[in-house]
Every structure is written in structure tokens, then in C-alpha cells.
């Protein structure tokens, strides 16, 4: 055995399970033991249920024994960001508001993973309601970066990235509204994919900004991301924004996509504010693609500088409405002080939401309020069109766009107290959500002091198979994700 089960890939594990070298219960026990060993340092989980996970593992073993295995994910523990509904499990969004909420239903992605035999493993920490870039906004705990324990894991899906990096899950699901999968993937040395808007159902994902949110996978290899994507992608009648499109066998496609590709390098993503070590690592990756025969071309995405502004109007406007349902009436935190029903709203929401959530609700409410709609929301939607058009114009010349995922490696906890400074960290990832495109963050090196660096590959709409092929071509020669954290 090349390594402990908890650090092996889905491909290796499913082969070992098929050969009978390992049972799913063995694997689950290995992951549980690892989690219990490192969790005091990493704090990736809001909760996990050993017995439930072992019961799912036993079911998997029984299926396999009966010759009825459900495929490569059967018996593999997959961590769940605590915004994805799993029937009978807590669903907290890392908010005091939902601290005691238990979901009575499964998200569509969960139904699909169950159908593929995967074990829904644990509830992974995040910035409250997925609002943040550091997982420091969790009401429960701050997750640590497994590669630099005093640094953040990124966010909002920090728990999902950290758990996979630390061997506490084989892979995981997160959600990405403005970079919430890709940035933590870059910070934690894992692969993270934000699919094209509409490829993966949002039914059962706690909404932050509905027109931007997508669920996507984290794993320690491009291949594992491909396997997981194949299981969760596809049209869902319960999500009106879900797209009818054929789902290829992403894993099988990986090695069929050989390039050479034309890669676009947007100059707007390599300017002021970019950490020199990140710039250097990404440039080395660009050079590697050139060595592989790819054509590298400068492209321009001229409206990039407006991305953060557009994003913080659209995302906060949508969130102010999406979070109105958290009122302490049907579920969730209810203030004990309320004098009447109106007072109940004011107090329950004030007590239940953390400060970043409140800040965004206030901003979103303001930009939608009477007299401001045209100046803010409508204008933002129009600039969004221009941002999208920038990408579509670039794709007339290139197959994919390569950028840094984040301007810097993981920063220290508490380093970004100013909200605007935190928002500006998302500058490279936001445009992708506004344009609805798929993008993957792939590890591409480390800083001098050992913090991971990721690059972002941005693909064409519904072009995940090609995009993952491009990522795999680099990873094959530079498997950075195989470097394990010391915990």
C-alpha cells in the first residue's frame, strides 16, 4: 500500500475495494481515526457522525459482496460543506441562526452521491452562509490551513478544502459564489472545480447569491475531481436554472484531451497587488504548458476592475432576499426577548446572524431600495453583461484562460479585518461567477515558507471535460497535491 487509506485517491481506493484488499468499513475507520487525530489542529468539521458513516460503509460492503457495487464512488467518504442538505443531518451554514437545524430532505447532489454509493461524511465548516474568504466568519470555529496552521484555509469552503488536504475526507463538496471553491483549493493545495452555472443542481444548497452559486468538488487530483463531477452533474427538474446538457464520462475524457491548447493570459490578472511568489509560480506553469506545445497568448478582459463592485451589488442584493426566510418563525434561532411578531424578526435576526452576514444584508437591502435600484442593481447587471462579453470575446482566440487563483498565498488569521480588503482578495475569481463559466484551481507550487499556491484555469461554458484535460496535462508532470501537510 502506497500510503494510508485516508490519503489515497478515489481511483486507487475503488480498485483496492474491488480487489477486496480493503473494505469500505476499513477505509471509513481510517478516515475517522485520521479525523480524530488531526481535527484538534485543523477544525474542518462542524460535526460528524461516526456511527452513521460506518453504517453507510457497511451497506457499501454488503453491496460489493453481493456483486452490486454502484461504481467508483461506492463506499468512498465524501465530505459535505455545511450548506448542502443531507436528510437527518444538521444543516447549519456555520450560523448560530441554524445551529439546531436538521434537514428533513436531501439536496439533489446528495441524492446523486447516494445513488453512486458514496458515504456522506460530516458537516464541513465555512464562512457563515458562505460569505467570506477565510472561514473566519464561521459562528462556531475558525478552520486552520493544514499547511500553515496559523493561516486561514481560504473560504468560504475552507472546511471542505482543509479536510481533503488533511486526509479527513477523500474528497468533498463545496460551493462557489465568487471563488469559494477555487480560493480555498489554492490555499490548501487541492484541486477545486467551480462548474459552469447550471451544470450541477443547486436544489438543497443553502442559497447565498442564486445567480452565482454553484456546487463543485474538491479532491487531491484532477482525476478524482472528474469522478466526483460525473456523479453530481446533470439536469435536475427541481432546479429551474439547471441546464439540459449531455454529461460526458469526465474521467475517461481526461486522457483523450491532449491539446495542444491555446491558452489566454489576461494582463488584468497579473497587475498590482499580485504577490511575486504567486506570479512566479503561475509563470512557471505557463512555461510548462508552452513546453507541452501550447500556444500562449495575451488576452484582455478589460472590465475586470469592475468585477468586485458588480459582484458585491448582485451578490448582496440576492442574499438580502435569500436570507429573509431566516426569521425564527418556522425554524432557526428565535429570540427569547421578542414582544411581538415584528420584534421577533428584528431580535432573532440580530442574534442569529454574524456581523459579515448582517453587513451584506444591509448593503443588499440598500442597493435594492426604492430610488437606488437603477443606479446599483440594474447598472451592475449591465456591467455583468460586459464582463461576460469580455470572456466570450477572448474565447474566440483561446481555448482556456490561465490566471492566478488568488493574489496571495493563505494569509494569517485576523490579517484582513477590513471588509473591503477581504472582498478584494476575490478579484481573480469573481469574474468567472459573473460570466457563469467553469474554472478549476490546480496546485502549482509553494511559497518559500511552504504555503501552497494555485493557478486558475477558466474554461468555456459546459467545457468541463476539456478544462479538466488541460488541468490534468499539467498535474501529470507536476503533482503538487501529492505533497502532504505535516500535522
Amino acid at each position, binding site marked *: 500500500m502506497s500510503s494510508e487509506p485516508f490519503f489515497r485517491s478515489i481511483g486507487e481506493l475503488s480498485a483496492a475495494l474491488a480487489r477486496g484488499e480493503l473494505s469500505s468499513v476499513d477505509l471509513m475507520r481510517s478516515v475517522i481515526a485520521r479525523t480524530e487525530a488531526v481535527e484538534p489542529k485543523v477544525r474542518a468539521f462542524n460535526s460528524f457522525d461516526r456511527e452513521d458513516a460506518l453504517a453507510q460503509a457497511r451497506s457499501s460492503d454488503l453491496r460489493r459482496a453481493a456483486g452490486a457495487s454502484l461504481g467508483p464512488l461506492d463506499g468512498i467518504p465524501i465530505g459535505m460543506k455545511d450548506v448542502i442538505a443531507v436528510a437527518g443531518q444538521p444543516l447549519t451554514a456555520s450560523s448560530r441562526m441554524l445551529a439546531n437545524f436538521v434537514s428533513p430532505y436531501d439536496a439533489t447532489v446528495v441524492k446523486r452521491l447516494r445513488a453512486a454509493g458514496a458515504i456522506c461524511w460530516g458537516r464541513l465548516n465555512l464562512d457563515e452562509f458562505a460569505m467570506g474568504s477565510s472561514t473566519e466568519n464561521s459562528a462556531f470555529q475558525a478552520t486552520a490551513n493544514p499547511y500553515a496552521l496559523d493561516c486561514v484555509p481560504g473560504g468560504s469552503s475552507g472546511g471542505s478544502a482543509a479536510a481533503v488536504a488533511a486526509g479527513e475526507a477523500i474528497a468533498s463538496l463545496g460551493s462557489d459564489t465568487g471563488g469559494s471553491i477555487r480560493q480555498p483549493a489554492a490555499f490548501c493545495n487541492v484541486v477545486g472545480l467551480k462548474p459552469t452555472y447550471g451544470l450541477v443542481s443547486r436544489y438543497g444548497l443553502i442559497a447565498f447569491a442564486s445567480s452565482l452559486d454553484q456546487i463543485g468538488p474538491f479532491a487531491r487530483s484532477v482525476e478524482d475531481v472528474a469522478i466526483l463531477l460525473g456523479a453530481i452533474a446533470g439536469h435536475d427538474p427541481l432546479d429551474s*436554472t439547471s441546464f439540459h446538457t449531455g454529461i460526458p464520462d469526465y474521467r475517461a475524457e481526461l486522457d483523450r484531451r491532449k491539446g495542444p491548447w491555446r491558452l489566454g493570459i489576461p494582463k488584468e490578472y497579473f497587475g498590482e497587488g499580485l504577490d511575486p511568489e504567486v506570479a512566479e509560480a503561475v509563470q512557471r506553469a505557463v512555461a510548462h504548458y508552452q513546453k507541452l506545445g501550447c500556444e500562449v497568448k495575451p488576452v484582455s478582459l478589460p472590465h475586470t476592475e469592475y468585477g468586485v463592485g458588480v459582484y458585491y451589488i448582485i451578490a448582496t442584493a440576492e442574499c*438580502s432576499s435569500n436570507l429573509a426566510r431566516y426569521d*425564527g418563525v418556522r425554524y432557526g434561532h428565535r429570540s427569547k426577548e421578542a414582544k411581538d*411578531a415584528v420584534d421577533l424578526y428584528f431580535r432573532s435576526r440580530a442574534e442569529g446572524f454574524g456581523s459579515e452576514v448582517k453587513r451584506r444584508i444591509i448593503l443588499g437591502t440598500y442597493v435594492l431600495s426604492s430610488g437606488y435600484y437603477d443606479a446599483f442593481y440594474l447598472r451592475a447587471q449591465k456591467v455583468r453583461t460586459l464582463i461576460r462579453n469580455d470572456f466570450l470575446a477572448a474565447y474566440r482566440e483561446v481555448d482556456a484562460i490561465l490566471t492566478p487563483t488568488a493574489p496571495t498565498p493563505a494569509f494569517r488569521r485576523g490579517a484582513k479585518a477590513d471588509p473591503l480588503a477581504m472582498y478584494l482578495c476575490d478579484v481573480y475569481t469573481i469574474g468567472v461567477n459573473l460570466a457563469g463559466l467553469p474554472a478549476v484551481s490546480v496546485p502549482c507550487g509553494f511559497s518559500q515558507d511552504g504555503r501552497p499556491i494555485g493557478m486558475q484555469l477558466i474554461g468555456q461554458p459546459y467545457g468541463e471535460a476539456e478544462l479538466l484535460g488541460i488541468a490534468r496535462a499539467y498535474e501529470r508532470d507536476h503533482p503538487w497535491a501529492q505533497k502532504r501537510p505535516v500535522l
Partner: protein
Amino acid sequence: MSHSIDLNIDHVANLARLALTPEEKAQYATQLTEILSHIAKLKEVNVDGVEPTAHAFPLYNVWAEDVPVAGLPVDLALRNAPAQRDQMFAVPKVVE
């Protein structure tokens, strides 16, 4: 509190049903003013004749046929209720 941006925090907090402390109000007013100043950059962009994007990939007529599906049993519907009585969700008296 800056006067360059017209943000009435009390009015907005009331619309959003958030009881804010005076400290929170002062802090948010300052921070949001800074953010709104950044957002004000959008005014530079010429958007004449540009269609707004509501959906990145617009579709039309996404619906379902009118075939009912059994919903939640009442006990499951009330499972997360902070207060309930007579199979209904209870709230402090609604003052009309």
C-alpha cells in the same frame, strides 16, 4: 459618518428587519460607505444599449406539469419549529 453616500442605516436596517446596536450602526455605516465608494467606480462604465444579465445562460419556459407529489408529513414539517401548538407554527401575537 460620511455624508458623501446617502446611506440611511436606520431605514435600511428596518427594511431588513435587523436590530442593530449603535456600535454596529456606526461601524457598518463607515465600512459600507467605503465599499460603496469602491462600487461607485461602476459609474465610469458606459452601459448605453447594454442588456442586463439576469441569468448567465438564459432559458425559457422551465416548468413542471401539474402533478402533485406527497409533501412533508406534519410532524416533519414542524420538526424544526421553535414553537408550535395544535399542529401549527406559533409566534408571538401578530399586531396588525
